[in-house]
């Protein structure tokens, strides 16, 4: 960056800096941070942004580009509110544990953190985080006409709510869709699958391991957010109900049929290694041209469109989750949201809310997405209005045919907030189920035995 400095100064003098600014990205934003014109869209909100000026808060996020973009804008937030934000980057695997330890010990280390929606039931049961409705209703803290809560993707909001109360504000999210190689499908006259059955037959038609092309890939590695991210959708599509008669049920005929479908497609048409793959491994394999289609988070589109690594750019298209035998689609929805740590003193809680409101606002979402000067594209913005912005649509459609339609269709129509059992015991249940699914996939035990064993282990967890 330093080597650019003389150039920048010269350009500034000649007044032709605009183009150069764009390439300088974050540095430019920091420079421009204090400019009043930049803050105007925020100042139109009918609240006093400076009311807790001088506070410092720590925010834990994961090292991902969508948070990097936000961190780059933090000086604007400081100029607007006088609040200092210290960011701590923690890998996704550890952030859940670290935040739970912080919340249990009530040390208030993290004012807010990138939170997994499946943890809100646990957080709420322990009163570790604040219900956000009081903050949303407080006229001195929130201008509802400016913030427009309804504009935030409803599926993600409901995923972050427990008993109708919102506990975390979605910042960046994802939805699961079908990703396929249009060139391979066209060559065989195939269409993207509308049903799980068709998905299997498409995979069969394209599966040619001798040419190093496999028909399909789904997450295989065990974990609550790994194989247990994909299986619950299949379970629900086969007519499964987590809370059968008010009792958490993970076995039974629907579960067996769903797991059988998953094991069958993984064994017959996925690369053998996929049994240990998580989404980055799948996206890598797809980008190398060895997988004809996969069902996973729409956010993996940035990996398969990375010009430095991908061999399939321009050959990718998208479709919604195929329908299950029950006739419905149930996609996996997920987001990183920001809750407020209850252990904080009142002033810090207010400062945290101002930060969350700023980060989730339409203006900041746009500034970290298509209006961001850096090279990274955010495919998980939280606002319906941004998803309708022509500039944003143009940017997103660069990922391949039908990207925005498939994503928005899935987000609006294919979601079911209870696609996973939302109970405080989820971390234990998710891990138990994940192990059972992998046991069945590896042939360690039969499908029925795996599910019955999981049910036996989960029952005492629910009894308390």
């Amino acid at each position, binding site marked *: 960056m330093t080597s650019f400095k003389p150039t920048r100064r010269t350009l500034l003098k000649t007044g032709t800096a605009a183009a150069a600014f764009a390439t300088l990205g974050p540095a430019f934003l920091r420079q421009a941070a204090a400019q009043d014109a930049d803050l105007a869209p925020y100042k139109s909100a009918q609240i006093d942004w400076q009311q807790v000026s001088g506070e410092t808060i720590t925010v834990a996020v994961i090292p991902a580009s969508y948070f990097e973009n936000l961190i780059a804008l933090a000086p604007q937030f400081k100029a607007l509110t006088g609040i200092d934000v210290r960011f701590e980057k923690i890998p996704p695997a550890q952030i859940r544990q670290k935040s739970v330890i912080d919340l249990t010990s009530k040390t208030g280390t993290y004012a807010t953190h990138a939170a997994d929606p499946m943890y809100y039931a646990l957080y709420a049961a322990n009163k570790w985080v604040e219900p956000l409705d009081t903050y949303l209703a407080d006229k001195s803290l929130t201008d509802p006409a400016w913030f427009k809560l309804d504009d935030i993707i409803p599926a993600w909001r409901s995923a972050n709510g427990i008993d109708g109360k919102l506990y975390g504000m979605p910042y960046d999210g994802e939805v699961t869709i079908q990703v396929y190689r249009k060139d391979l499908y066209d060559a065989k006259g195939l269409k993207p699958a509308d049903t799980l059955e068709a998905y299997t037959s498409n995979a069969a038609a394209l599966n040619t391991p001798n040419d190093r092309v496999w028909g399909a890939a789904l997450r295989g590695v*065990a974990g609550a957010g790994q194989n247990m991210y994909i299986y619950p959708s299949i379970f629900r599509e086969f007519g499964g109900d987590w809370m059968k008669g008010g009792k958490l049920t993970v076995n039974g005929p629907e579960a067996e049929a769903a797991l059988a479908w998953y094991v069958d497609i993984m064994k017959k048409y996925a690369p*053998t*290694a996929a*049994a*240990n793959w998580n989404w980055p491994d799948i996206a890598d394999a797809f980008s190398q041209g060895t997988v004809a289609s996969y069902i996973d988070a729409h956010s993996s589109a940035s990996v398969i469109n990375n010009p430095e690594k991908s061999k399939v750019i321009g050959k990718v298209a998208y479709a919604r989750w195929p329908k299950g035998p029950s006739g419905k689609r149930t996609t996996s929805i997920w987001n990183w949201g920001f809750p407020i740590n209850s252990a904080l003193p009142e002033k810090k809680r207010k400062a945290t809310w101002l930060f969350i409101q700023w980060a989730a606002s339409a203006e900041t979402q746009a500034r970290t997405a298509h209006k961001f000067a850096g090279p990274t594209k955010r495919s998980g913005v939280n606002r319906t209005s941004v998803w309708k912005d022509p500039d944003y649509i143009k940017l997103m459609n660069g990922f391949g045919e039908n990207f925005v339609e498939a994503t928005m269709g899935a987000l609006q129509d294919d979601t079911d907030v209870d696609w996973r059992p939302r109970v405080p015991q989820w*971390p*234990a249940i998710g891990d138990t189920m994940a192990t059972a699914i*992998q046991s069945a996939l590896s042939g*360690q035990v039969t499908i029925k035995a795996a599910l019955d064993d999981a049910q036996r282990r989960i029952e005492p*967890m629910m009894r308390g």
Partner: protein
Amino acid sequence: MATTAVTSAGIASEAPRSDFGHVLAQRERRFAAALLAPAFLALLATTTFPLLFLVYTSAFRMDLAMPFTNGFVGFENYQMLLSDERFWTSLLVSLVYTGSTVALQVIIGLALALLVMDMKRGQGWFRVIAILPVVLSPAVVGMIWRTFMLAPEFGIVDFLAINAGLGSKNWLGDPTLAMVSVIAIHTWQWTPFAFMVLLASLASLPEDIYEAARLDRASAWQRFRRITLPLLRPAIVMVIIMRTMVALTAFAAIFTVTAGGPGTATEILNLYAYRKSFTELSIGYGSALAVALLIVTIIISGILFAMRRAK
């Protein structure tokens, strides 16, 4: 009388000196204690206290997912543990893993040491290359093996297996192969340690005994059985003890390679305790599992130490 006088005088004259010495020694001891105290306290705070706290926690139900059920339960966690099938499976996996990795490390390490002892040139180079795996972090080793070596169709090991006519194998997705793989990885990483220790011991064996044995026409095998092995015994037992204690509590490599999977095929006790505590958030039961692992480790190393003393 005179003698007594002398004696008493002697005693009298010595008594203050020994008193003085005693005071000095006491002061010195106190000074030493003062110097040691911070280190001792630090040791207490970082090792003994957490250990006691772990045992204390294991007597409670501490479930972060259901805080309303928390409370003192006495030995209930241990009773649950005895009837927990997954505990026994993970204990068995731990024992198989430890037994086979330690045996392999000693056998391969000894074989390499014997080979290298006879090398005329390049011994130094060989030692440097051989020690490399030990220097790597187990988590890095795990990542390397998982992605570059063992991935079916894409990894080096699988490539070699296909070329050797064995066909592509699901190294980490098949319960038996996954166990074989994690044992191979641990052995690969830690054999150099056994190798270095045994090589150093081999180098210090007295040459004249071998000379005498050769004069008595003892065969190479006889020399190995009757001289080398008995003389190396202390070193071998030491290697076994040290490697056993580490293998029982292995974690990072296995965690990154299989995370205990597929299913529970490679879930050693340490990993199960971790998952119960930090993934399932059952801290009390997880602590009981950790205490169980501690007891198993103490018993096994106790037996090994006893074997070391027995001649």
